[in-house]
Structures are given as structure tokens and as C-alpha cells.
């Protein structure tokens, strides 16, 4: 299946977006989804700036609102493979209400969050996922708050598939997205990725990759160093 378009890719050279895009195409290929039958609802932000780069049905939506649009698509036509995708600024900061409620309802969509820890497209301000103490354009003295974790929010709200992966590990990311889009029920994939402009040295891939999902949510919550499919029910 060919998911390529003839459009110019506008991400910075070295942006993790490229790795993510390859992984998404791999996953769709493996799941054998025809381009017309996959609907990717893009949020607004650097990472979500991808409607031109993937040749499937798709919607460039609004900042923070990709999830509810995707929920409506899936309700109206359950035969479609429906993905909401965007940065942590959109999906966690602006749109957390939608994230937790889609998880609560176990809506049969996949949410992919590209977490680069800042609002990249608006020039690097702190989002709610920015680590405590990190200096950004909106927190010159260092971010005063503990970060919010999409994985934690989804877990406590009732998500039935929760995973964390690293954008440059294309092989693992492909497999995890494949599992998520073929999972029945709400699936969340958090893709940790550096932004070469604003958070170049922030992201380190430390910790352990899970061989299989954990059973107890409390073993996952609050831990940012666990990777792979963390929870599945």
C-alpha cells in the first residue's frame, strides 16, 4: 500500500516527525488498511502538521480537539480505522478533558501523542508536560510545575491500551502503533521525541522496555521511564 503524497515535508531537518511518519505508514501497511479507510484526525501543532504528508483520509482539525472529532467519525462509521494525532500541547494541555473522557468511554479510537515537552510550533513555551525546572520561553526561571503525564491520565480514566515509545526507535514504534490501531477500544500511544530546536538535549531514552504489559496500574503511574505496551485489558 502506498501512503506517500507528492507534498513537501515542512518539518525541520532532524525532526522526530520523520521517524513517527515512517512508523505510522509501517503500522498501516501491516494492518492492511486501505488509504481511503483510514481517517487520521490531526490536531494543531508541529507534529500534527501532517495532513499533507500521509495519503489517507484525514482531517486537519483544531488545537486540542482532534479527539472529539475522531470520536464522532468512529461513531458514525465503525468500519473506519480512526486515529487522533497531535502534540502534547494540544492533546494534553488544551484538550485533556477530551482525552480523559474518551478513555473513560473506551471509545474505539487510537490517540497518538507526540510528546516533545513544549509547544514547539508557537516557539517553545512550556506545556503541561514540560519537566519541572526546565527553562522555556514562557518559564525563563524554570518551569515551577510537576508535569502531567498522558499515560497516567489515560490509565486512571479507563483506557484499555496504553503504550509509550520513542520516535527514533522506528521498529518498536511501528509495532506499537500497529497493536494500538488493531486494538478494540481506546488505545493511547505516547511517542516521546526531542524537538531539535527547543528540547534537543532534554529527551533521554532511559529506563526499561516492557516484555509484556503490566497488570497493576499503580506500577505504571508516575513512572516516566517505562517503555513499550504498558497496559492492556
Amino acid at each position: 500500500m502506498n501512503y506517500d503524497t507528492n507534498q513537501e515535508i515542512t518539518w525541520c531537518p532532524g525532526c522526530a516527525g520523520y521517524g513517527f511518519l515512517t512508523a505510522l505508514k509501517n503500522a498501516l501497511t501491516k494492518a492492511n488498511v486501505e488509504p481511503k479507510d483510514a481517517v487520521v484526525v490531526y490536531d494543531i501543532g508541529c507534529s500534527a502538521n501532517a495532513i499533507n504528508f500521509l495519503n489517507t483520509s484525514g482531517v486537519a482539525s483544531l488545537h486540542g480537539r482532534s479527539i472529539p472529532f475522531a470520536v464522532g467519525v468512529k461513531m458514525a462509521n465503525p468500519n473506519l480505522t480512526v486515529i487522533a494525532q497531535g502534540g502534547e500541547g494540544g492533546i494534553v494541555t488544551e484538550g485533556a478533558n477530551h482525552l480523559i473522557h474518551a478513555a473513560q468511554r473506551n471509545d474505539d479510537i487510537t490517540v497518538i501523542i507526540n510528546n516533545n515537552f513544549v509547544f514547539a510550533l508557537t516557539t517553545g513555551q512550556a506545556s503541561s508536560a514540560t519537566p519541572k525546572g526546565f527553562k522555556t520561553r514562557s518559564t525563563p526561571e524554570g518551569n515551577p510545575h510537576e508535569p502531567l503525564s498522558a499515560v497516567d491520565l489515560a490509565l486512571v480514566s479507563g483506557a484499555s491500551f496504553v503504550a509509550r515509545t520513542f520516535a527514533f526507535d522506528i521498529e518498536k514504534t511501528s509495532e506499537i502503533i500497529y497493536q494500538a490501531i488493531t486494538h478494540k477500544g481506546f488505545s493511547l500511544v505516547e511517542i516521546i521525541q526531542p524537538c531539535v530546536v527547543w528540547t534537543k538535549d532534554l529527551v533521554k531514552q532511559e529506563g526499561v522496555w516492557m516484555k509484556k504489559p503490566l497488570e497493576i496500574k499503580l506500577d505504571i503511574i508516575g513512572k516516566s521511564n517505562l517503555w513499550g505496551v504498558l497496559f492492556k485489558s
Partner: protein
Amino acid sequence: MKNFAIKLSGPAGAGMMQAGETLSKALNRLGFYTLMYPEYPSRIRGGDNHVLVVFSEEKHVAPVEKIDLLLAFGKENYRNHKNEGNEGFQGYEGEELGLMKIAKELGNPLVANTAGLGLIFKILGFELKALEEQIEEEFKEKEAVKKINVDAAGKGYEISKSKSKSKSGNGKNILNYSGNEALVEGILKAKCGFAAIYPMTPINSILTMLSKSRVQVFRPEDEIAGMMAALGASYAGKRAMIATSGGGFSLMVEGLGMAGMAEIPIVCVVGQRTGPSTGMATYSSQADLNFVINAGQGEFPRIVLAPGDIGECFRLGAEAFNLAECYQVPVILLTDKYLAESRFSGNGEELKGSEYKNYNDYKIYKNYKRYQFTEDGISPMAFPGQAIVRANSYEHDEEGFSCDDKTNREKMMDRRMNKLSDLNGGFEIFGKGKTVLVGWGSTKEIILDFLKDNFGFNFLHIWRPWPFPQGAIDILRNVERVIVIEGNYSGQLADLIERFTFRKVERVLKDDGRPFYKQELEDKLLK
């Protein structure tokens, strides 16, 4: 016969709304046209809920301030309304009359209201039969409840020693609908497939009714989600709607703009209530016209429909979906608390004549372009699954790819902004005279009632305030005197008319949360 006005008043929870509905429907059975207008504070128990039931031998019944008959269920409630009487006013208090006692003896204190209806029927000089039949109809599935209510009505009837006998009306098969009920009939007629509704007065009963229908109903986490989910469902191929009031619509505005830009059909029912902000949550208003016409950044085409009676609620309720699909634009159906929750009557024509119209080809497309340039500006609609369909809130090219190109932008704006150029109609004219009264939305019935008794007036009812009807502009430019009647503080339709006709108009305005009352309107117009 003059219109006759009855008020029922009692604490919230005592069944005033239900009693008002039963009474008005029983009066319909007797051949009378009715209006039932409920007023209630924002609370679930206690206080003073009251319903006004006005009946008449002719169609078009306006609310009145002065009443002919009061039945209160509680001393406090009686005191609240005892000074609202016309000449010949009769006022009763249910406790004193023993209505509560009857209900207790029958084993259910809640049927005091029904006993009261029996009493009213006797006082008015009508036979009990029509009331009994109405009660039997309402409780036909609950034998025990039916019996106790029929018994209560009978006992209430016996309390009064009145010997008066009155003639029935002449109407046949009179139907009785609230604005919301008629709107739902229209929504179903149009084969709406998806409704996202977060509860809010005055659209709650739409959520309740649609939840029991074949429409897929989504109660979202907030109105932003509701709007977005409805857009998602529409993009995926279902006729979709939201329903809310001003506060909820405020949250939906960003999504409304997306509907305009991405050309996703959507019907937005906006039931106006008194603002600004929380305002008076359970009272009416016509102050959101400017808001719905102008909501959203940038410029995009939209249609605003403002039904004025149950016939238009039905017809425009259905037509909204046809228009949204035909032009691929957001269509706003602007109602208000008075129209939505009051009950009106008609003779059956009201709920006929609308049809479902389809504008889409359900075929497999090759090389589909969602935003293809076409002669009339409307690009063929396909849904994901039929083709690769790219919808875009960002400016885009024909294929739906984001695009900042100057020439493309100009062509796309031209295409979108001219989509509605062949719309016509939008208003209706009644009566004859040199002075033109202009109204929109729920003032229709009230002004028609005024015309029954007052000659020499022309009435222009605007049911599509946006795009503002060209035909109305042509008429209003060339008449002597124009008086615009509307339920807001500044005269929002009046402003629109002045903007489009370059002429000055007079304004009769009201902004106290209540509908125009018959006498009040006469006082203002005949002074």
C-alpha cells in the same frame, strides 16, 4: 368569544407543567385552539412554577398578562398571582377547596393537580368527558395511574356547584405541540443520523426525545466536544446536529468556524435564553441573533433560520439539514425558550409538507478532490471509505492539502463565499396596510394574534434572518412606516434592516425574559 386565560400555579414538583399540558390538550379536544406557556425558576422543588393556558376559538394565540381564572396549589402561590385578574376574575386555592384532601384519599398526593383540572372544567361549564379522554390517552399504558387520575378529575369536578354550561369550539382534530416537539419531528423527517447534545435549558427535551429515537445520540463531555464530534460524524457520512443555548454555543464557535472552512454540513439548534452569561436561565430572549450571524473568526457562509411557530419548527427543522447538505455550510436554527417549551396548537397542516432531499452521490470516486472548483462553487461530497477524503480547517487546495498560495486562497474564498448566491425566500407576509410590522422567530404567533383584532397593518415575518432576504429588503425600502418588534434590548433585526435598506425603522423592544403579551403589544403599537 374573547381569548380566555387560565393560570395554574404551584411549587416545582407539584406537576404544574403536566397539568397545563393535559388541560390544553383537553381543551383542544373540545375544539379550542390553545397556548400553554410555562414559567419556572431554575430549581427542581418548591418555589412558584406557573403555567398560563389561553384558549380561543381561532388560531394564533398570544400570551396575556391578565388572567380570567387562577388555580393555585399553595397559599403562597395564590398570593403571587391573585392580583393578575381581568374583570370577572375568579381565583381559587387548591388546599382550601380540598383538592389535596381528594388526592390523599385517593392514595396519591400528586394527583391534586388532576383534581384541579376537573374543577376547572366544571367552572368553565364543560362536560368532563374531554378531560377524561385526555387523561386516558396520557396514561394508556399505566392502568392504575390512569384510574386514579380519572377518579381525581371526577372528584374535583364535583367540588364546584357551578351550573354554567358552555359551548365547545369549532376546531377539529387540533394538534398540540411544543416548539421542541415539532422541531424533533422535523429533525426525524430529515433523517438526521447523529446528535451531540450537552444538557441546557431550553433544549433539554430535544435530548430526551432524540434519545428515544433512531438517531445516534452523544452526550459529550462539553460543548466543544459535542460540536467536534458532530462534525466528525458529518464528515464520516451522517447528517449531524448539535443543540445548545448561548453559553454552550459560545464554546462551539471555534468548531463552527471549522465547519465553515472545511465545508462540513452541520445543523446547530440554538435555543435562546436570557443572557448575557447565565442571565436568567429559564427565561426567554431574542438577543443572540447578532451572535449567531457573526460568531467565528474570519469570513464564511452560513444560514440562520428562525422558526416562529410549530409549523416552521417542523418545516425548517427538516429543511435545515437539506440546506446544510446542499450548500455544505453550517445552518443555525435559532429558537428560544418561549417557542421551545411552550405548547401551541394547530389544525394538522403544520406537520406536513417537508421532505428529505439528498444531494450526495454514494459511489466510489477515482481521484476524488474534496474541494474541487465547480461552476456553482459546490464541490461533490464523498465520505471516507468512498474515497480518500481530506477535510481541512487550514486553507487548502482542491485536494484538501494545506496551502498558503495567494491565488489559491483567493479562488477558494470566492468559491466558498458565493455558494449561497441562489438562496431565495426567507420571509412571509400577512395582512394589508401601510404600516409594516416586522418580526422574526417566536413573535410570529403573537403578532398574528394582534392582527386578528387590529386592521391596517402589514406583517413581515422573517424566518431566515441570514443571509438577509433580498425580497424583504426590496419591500422594506419602499414602504411608509416600519416597526420592528423583537425580544432584545437594542433591536438587532432592526439594525440589520437599517444596514441593508439604508432607512430608519421604529423599534418595539422587550428584554425582560418574557414573551410579548397581547395587551402590552397593543399598548405599544396603538399608542
